[in-house]
């Protein structure tokens, strides 16, 4: 762009080439998702044709009707469970992580170094290696097959504390000092000054926590059993088990699980991308 010596035709040619590559790649990323939607609108017979039809013929609500009416697979219930679990989970993460991060960023107290070192230390332990003992712990709390088991344990993750502490450290101290002069106590400073200033970081953490929880698969398939207690990911596994190659139904379930996070992604794209890129710079 800043090379006036380059002739216009070369420039245009390069642009066209660039867009050709960009579009080709976009198709690679998007076609599978489009195919998911197309298949969800086929009939059973329509999806069994070899080779497969490019478009649904006829367009059918069969898949969606199956997942919404078959009581053996209460997909709507799973959807609500997932919504509730992911929402409660991100609230829990926001409340606990922001308070802890504020103390670690701004207060001096005994044990601060040790607590921070311990919290950071667990970032290096693969969470999957703690699944067996964590199963025993939630079992002894009688949490198996309850909502709490998919809401609470994940909130112990060190990421939120780490992420918010970093953000709080970057805030100018002057505003908090001014609040102190106005007679505010620590809680008021935190609640009235720091949190409002941290809205972007809090939004990022809320969205990332929601996504993580909504998508979690490994943990819920072992701690949730009753069909009416499942969240969507283990529910989709069940759906695959009972419908096997009845792809319109399975794809309708997959669409239902994708739509909320794709909407969230479109609305909060900036927050998600920023959260991800900041996590990289920290490393």
């Amino acid at each position: 762009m800043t090379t006036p010596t380059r002739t216009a035709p070369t420039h245009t040619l390069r642009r066209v080439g660039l867009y050709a590559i960009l579009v080709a790649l976009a198709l690679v990323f998007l076609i599978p998702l489009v195919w998911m939607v197309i298949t969800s609108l086929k009939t059973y017979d329509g999806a069994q044709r070899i080779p497969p039809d490019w478009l649904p013929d006829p367009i059918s609500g069969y898949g969606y009707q199956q997942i919404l009416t078959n009581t053996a697979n209460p997909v709507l219930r799973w959807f609500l469970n997932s919504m509730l679990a992911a929402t409660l989970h991100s609230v829990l993460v926001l409340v606990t992580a922001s308070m802890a991060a504020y103390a670690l960023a701004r207060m001096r107290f005994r044990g601060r170094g040790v607590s921070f070192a311990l919290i950071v230390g667990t970032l290096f332990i693969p969470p999957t290696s703690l699944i067996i003992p964590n199963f025993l712990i939630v079992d002894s709390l009688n949490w198996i097959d309850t909502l709490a088991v998919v809401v609470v344990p994940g909130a112990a993750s060190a990421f939120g504390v780490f992420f918010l502490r970093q953000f709080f450290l970057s805030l100018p101290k002057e505003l908090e000092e001014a609040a102190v002069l106005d007679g505010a106590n620590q809680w008021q400073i935190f609640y009235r000054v720091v949190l409002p200033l941290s809205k972007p970081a809090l939004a990022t953490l809320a969205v990332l926590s929601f996504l993580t929880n909504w998508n979690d698969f490994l943990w819920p398939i072992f701690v949730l059993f009753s069909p009416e207690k499942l969240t969507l990911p283990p529910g989709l596994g069940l759906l695959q088990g009972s419908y096997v190659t009845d792809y319109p139904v399975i794809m309708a379930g997959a669409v239902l699980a994708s739509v909320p996070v794709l909407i969230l992604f479109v609305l909060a794209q900036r927050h998600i991308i920023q959260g991800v890129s900041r996590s990289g710079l920290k490393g």
Partner: protein
Amino acid sequence: MADVIEVGAARGDAPPPAASAARRGAKSANRVGRATPYLFLTPYLVLFTVFGLLPIVLGLYLSVHQWDFQLPNRPFVGLDNYKELFSSDSAVFGDWWQSVRATAIFTVVSVPLLVVVPLGLALLLNRSFPGRTFFRAVYFAPYVLGVAVIGLLWRFLLDANLGLVNRLLGVVGLPADTPWVTDVPWAWISLVGVTVWWTSGFNAVIYLAGLQDIAPELYEAAKVDGASAWERFRHVTLPGLRPVLLFVMTTTVLASANVFGQSFLITQGAPGTETRTVVWYIVEQGLRNNDAGRAAAMSIVFALMLAVVSLANFRLFRYRED
């Protein structure tokens, strides 16, 4: 966790920021209560202790016991659970090492692609042109979907008869009957390919942030010196990206080694149990076969293996720096 607060309060010497407190006068001593930091920390510390620290201790404890969920007796067995993993006549030896092999294959094949492909995407996106944000979003989009969704989706897309992949291959005149999910090496290609499709956008976004941190002056200077595009990439971009590369390498190795959902849902371990991964085998041993002791020992051996790999990774990059 109430005792933590009391301990802090009883010690009574949590130092308030001395200099500023003096400046603000006596009033602030009341405001920064001694218990305050602990009150702020407690909710998180309760969660962290119960679900972050306790499992580490409990895992170590389990690993030296024969611990069956169904049996009342859970005798201490010393290091037997560990020894079994390394003695070829034990019941778990074959399956355990098969799962290690599966995980190693997946990691070794997927990591280079997950480091290089996203870098390519990031370089492509790291210039200003109309639609940049749109394309970045499209490349990132698969990542916001969970493994359950992409697993089901690709199981279907890779179906030998009804799947879109073979259909498209047929259209361009290639063999259209590849058993993508039921036979090797196809199963490996599928698992790696799906993972690259699913997570490349994530690494690309991390690279993009790193690329934007490289000072444009460096590129200008290199251009003035007559460096070609490749030379600028080799001598400006790559060195500038080193910390980000290290981060991407380390996190990607860990993510790949922890692979579970893809093989659980797409190949379902096929053929046989050849694509069953370590994480899958551990949870199956511990939670399906009720053998928490052995599973805990496997978890610890696995965590140590990953630690060694991460350290090696670190050393490699550190050496290059010197």
